């Protein structure tokens, strides 16, 4: 459906603020061709984020940071903006507007988004200069201009805005008094316990509170000089900021004889009493309510845009209000009916010392109100339960401890966002759900936080959810997150995905050809890119067709030993399945004695680590180990490290399967081939899981009827429990799955991506789809692994001794006796 051939209609927007512009953005999402758009704004700025005023005042953000729509946006969309020009009259019969500068323009549709004005209650002296509200950039500028260290600033009103204003002023080291009419602050959003906790916190910023107090008189000749309070005290002051509420700005609509109540009365499609005139935001009244917070305004914008675009919708049905205080270091959230009455119940958790307070108001087994202070991590979850009127009777003993307490699952530690349901709202300001963000990232190929903000609006308003949004981005993209933005290193601008694709679709014989093809900025690459590209070539061609480039390997992979902090190495022979014998131990002990190994230690992978071996000792030591029947344990490798086992049914009275033998079989099956990162397997003989199989890359657990396979566990910085993969009845099936999973990981993951991170990036379902539900594919991967193994199962110790590589391990010793500059040192 193209409307580009039709004549465009004229849409005029009065007000260049957040709700008006959001309506236009939402309209553009539906159609860009329907209207010629003209915007009038009485402030001399582009659309800025009024919610950020407190950060502007405190100096934590610059004005530039708060601009939502830059000049380029207006230009790109051919919007005519008259900033600093106020509309002074609407003629709804002629369908024209008249501006202060004398412009008269006709409209087909008119949108009034004039917002609200500060409400300054009648007070003695309130007409003096420097008695102001806190609504605009100008207010913030005025405050910043006036405040001075030897004068006290007075803020009236202990609501959201008043506290933010007081905080912003106090952050400059100015003595600030906040007067509030009732006995506890934020009484519109908080109960008294929450209010007291908040007050205590804010006092540490240097704000003095006068509760149950109002201003008696503001005195001065022209400007504020002194303020006296109803508690009998007075203070020398040069500025009084009123944050005592807002009044919808209805003046213009009133003179145009539109229906006015508290605000401009609108229907569910945000139309006023004149169907061609819409009103939105703080100036509008819907269902008897006016709103002063951004979330409801943005909700209204959606419906208003639909109506303007002639798209049918159910219409706006009012909003549940929730509030977050935007003061750095203060976590506060409230929503719904937070006070309750005699018919409601309260669930309360209070820890004054730590500063955590949570209160849920319950009616009829449903949450109707929320107050969170100090810990707002579960705010969106509670809000969802509230909005969906979920019956919480089953949850009530645990609900206050948060969502993570319900599952009792601490295994997937740290990843709070993965616990968020897709339909759960993460950005309260813009009503964006997690699912929206994830879909936008996937559909529009978004890579940066800025792109996500622009595309979804999540985090684009008050910004308090940006951390969560970023976490979702990281989770959705996995390693691609940083990589693709900047390239995998400074040498290039491409991510792993692109490099892999390039390697897959072209033929190369070495890493440098890949660099050339992809326009590397360096000749030789670096420590980050060269090993990665080398790996991708290796996994494509296998060891028989591509010679693993030793000079492109990290030190441990190159010298087949693990470098230690002092430059010596550790040597770990393979102990198949963790099973050894008296003879093997004796041989190893003899070798350790022979080379005077300073430290011998059992590893977590059930073998022996000989630490402190000098590089020149490696070759002879390897020879002795080879001669005694040992091969390299590859404790250095990006490849199979160990297969850990429990005793299993050979000895254990609980054992159901022969886990020791299976461990040996699996180690013999999987050692050798290089992988994206290290790889560990464990086999337990029964579900008691003594081999700790559930934190390995592959965990195998014996049960009476076969083997349970789980994958992608990790015991590192962030412990991750494996995901259950499949249960198999026979050993043969187990081998096939192990081979297929390993090969799929080798081919699909990015270099240096552990299975845990890979699976979290691609999703376990993706892996299951490839290997469980697609038998031919599974068999192909298993076959691919066997093919690779044919050439990879070579003991690197023996090979490097025989092909002469270890020659370079020996140092060149210069006899200092013949060096005049060097004195012979006594030993």
């Amino acid at each position: 459906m193209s409307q580009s051939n039709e004549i465009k209609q004229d849409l005029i927007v009065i007000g260049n603020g957040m709700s008006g512009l959001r309506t236009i953005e939402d309209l553009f999402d539906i159609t860009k061709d329907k209207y010629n758009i003209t915007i009038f704004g009485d402030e001399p700025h582009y659309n800025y984020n009024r919610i950020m005023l407190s950060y502007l005042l405190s100096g934590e953000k610059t004005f530039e940071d708060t601009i939502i729509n830059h000049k380029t946006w207006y230009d790109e969309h051919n919007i005519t903006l008259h900033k600093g020009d106020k509309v002074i009259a609407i003629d709804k019969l002629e369908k024209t507007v008249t501006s202060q500068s004398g412009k008269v323009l006709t409209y087909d549709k008119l949108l009034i988004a004039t917002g609200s004005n500060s409400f300054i209650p009648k007070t003695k002296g309130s007409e003096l200069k420097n008695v102001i509200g806190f609504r605009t950039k100008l207010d913030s500028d005025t405050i910043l201009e006036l405040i001075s260290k030897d004068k006290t600033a007075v803020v009236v009103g202990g609501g959201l805005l008043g506290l933010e204003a007081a905080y912003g002023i106090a952050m400059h080291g100015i003595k600030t008094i906040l007067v509030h009419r009732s006995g506890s602050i934020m009484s519109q959003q908080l109960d008294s316990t929450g209010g007291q906790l908040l007050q205590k916190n804010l006092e540490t910023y240097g704000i003095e509170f006068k509760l149950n107090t109002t201003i008696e008189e503001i005195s001065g000749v022209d400007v504020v000089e002194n303020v006296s309070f109803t508690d009998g005290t007075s203070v020398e002051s040069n500025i009084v900021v009123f944050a005592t509420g807002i009044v919808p700005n209805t003046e213009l609509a009133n003179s145009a004889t539109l229906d006015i109540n508290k605000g401009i009365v609108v229907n569910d499609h945000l139309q006023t009493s004149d169907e061609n005139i819409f009103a939105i935001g703080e100036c509008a009244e819907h269902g008897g309510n006016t709103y002063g917070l951004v979330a409801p305004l943005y909700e209204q914008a959606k419906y208003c845009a639909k109506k303007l675009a002639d798209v049918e919708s159910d219409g706006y049905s009012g909003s549940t209000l929730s509030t977050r205080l935007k003061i750095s270091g203060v976590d506060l959230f409230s929503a719904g009916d937070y006070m309750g009455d005699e018919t409601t119940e309260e669930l309360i958790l209070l820890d004054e010392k730590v500063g955590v307070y949570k209160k849920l108001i319950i009616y009829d087994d449903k949450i109707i109100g929320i107050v969170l202070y100090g810990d707002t991590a579960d705010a969106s979850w509670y809000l969802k339960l509230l909005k969906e009127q979920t019956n919480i009777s089953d949850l009530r003993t645990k609900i206050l401890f948060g969502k993570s307490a319900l599952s009792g699952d601490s295994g997937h530690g740290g990843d709070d966002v993965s616990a968020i349901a897709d339909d759960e709202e993460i950005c309260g300001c813009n009503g964006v759900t997690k699912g929206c963000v994830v879909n936008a990232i996937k559909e529009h190929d978004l890579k940066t936080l800025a792109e996500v903000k622009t595309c979804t609006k999540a985090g684009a308003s008050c910004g308090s959810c940006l951390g969560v949004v970023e976490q979702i981005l990281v989770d959705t993209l996995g390693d691609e997150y940083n990589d693709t933005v900047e390239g995998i290193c400074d040498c290039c601008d491409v991510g792993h995905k692109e490099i892999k694709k390039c390697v897959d679709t072209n033929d190369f014989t070495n890493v440098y050809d890949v660099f050339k093809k992809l326009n590397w900025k360096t000749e030789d690459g670096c420590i980050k890119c060269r090993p990665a590209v080398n790996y991708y070539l290796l996994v494509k061609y296998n060891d028989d067709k591509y010679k693993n480039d030793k000079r492109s390997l990290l030190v441990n992979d190159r010298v087949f030993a693990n470098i230690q902090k002092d430059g010596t190495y550790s040597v770990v022979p393979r102990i198949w399945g963790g099973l050894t014998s008296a003879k093997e131990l004796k041989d190893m002990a003899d070798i350790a004695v022979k080379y005077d190994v300073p430290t011998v230690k059992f590893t977590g992978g059930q073998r022996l680590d000989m630490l402190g071996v000098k590089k020149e000792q490696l070759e002879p030591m390897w020879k002795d180990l080879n001669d005694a029947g040992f091969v390299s344990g590859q404790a250095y490798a990006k490849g199979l490290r160990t297969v850990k086992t429990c005793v299993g049914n050979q000895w254990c009275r609980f054992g159901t399967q022969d886990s020791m033998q299976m461990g040996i079989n699996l180690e013999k099956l999987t050692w050798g081939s290089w992988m994206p990162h290290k790889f560990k397997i464990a086999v337990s003989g029964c579900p008691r899981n003594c081999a700790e199989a559930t934190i390995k890359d592959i965990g195998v657990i014996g049960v009476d009827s076969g083997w349970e396979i789980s994958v992608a566990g990790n015991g590192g910085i962030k412990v991750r429990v494996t995901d259950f993969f499949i249960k198999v009845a026979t050993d043969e099936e187990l081998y096939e799955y192990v081979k297929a999973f390993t090969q799929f990981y080798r081919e699909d993951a990015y270099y240096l991506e552990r299975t845990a991170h890979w699976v979290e990036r691609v999703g376990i379902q993706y892996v299951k789809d490839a290997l469980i539900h697609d038998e031919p594919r599974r068999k192909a991967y298993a076959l691919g692994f066997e093919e690779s193994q044919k050439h990879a199962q070579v003991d690197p110790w023996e090979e490097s001794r025989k092909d002469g590589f270890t020659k370079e391990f020996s140092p060149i010793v210069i006899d200092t006796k013949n060096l005049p500059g060097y004195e012979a040192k006594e030993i």
Partner: protein
Amino acid sequence: MSNWIKIIEIEDVPLMGSRKVVVGDDEIVIFKTKDGSIFAVNNVCPHKQGKLSEGLVHDHMVTCPLHNWDIDLETGIVKDEDNSCTKKYETKIEEGVIYLAL
């Protein structure tokens, strides 16, 4: 006055690799970069004393194996960190043999 000391045949230093030279208590490392150039520096990273001989060679640079500091072999100076450097030694090649100025 420095002495030119005969060290090793140039072909015994692996391309993009290194050889360690022990002189009394000191260790000097000789590198051969991809373009065949020879460099010699003290075998100690100024950061945490990592053995540069075990590092990855790229362009005229070596990356320390311990914490990935890049050291410029032409100067011995740590990349992006002008205040740290490791000692650089002069080298010369005569008839396929590397000499070090000690």
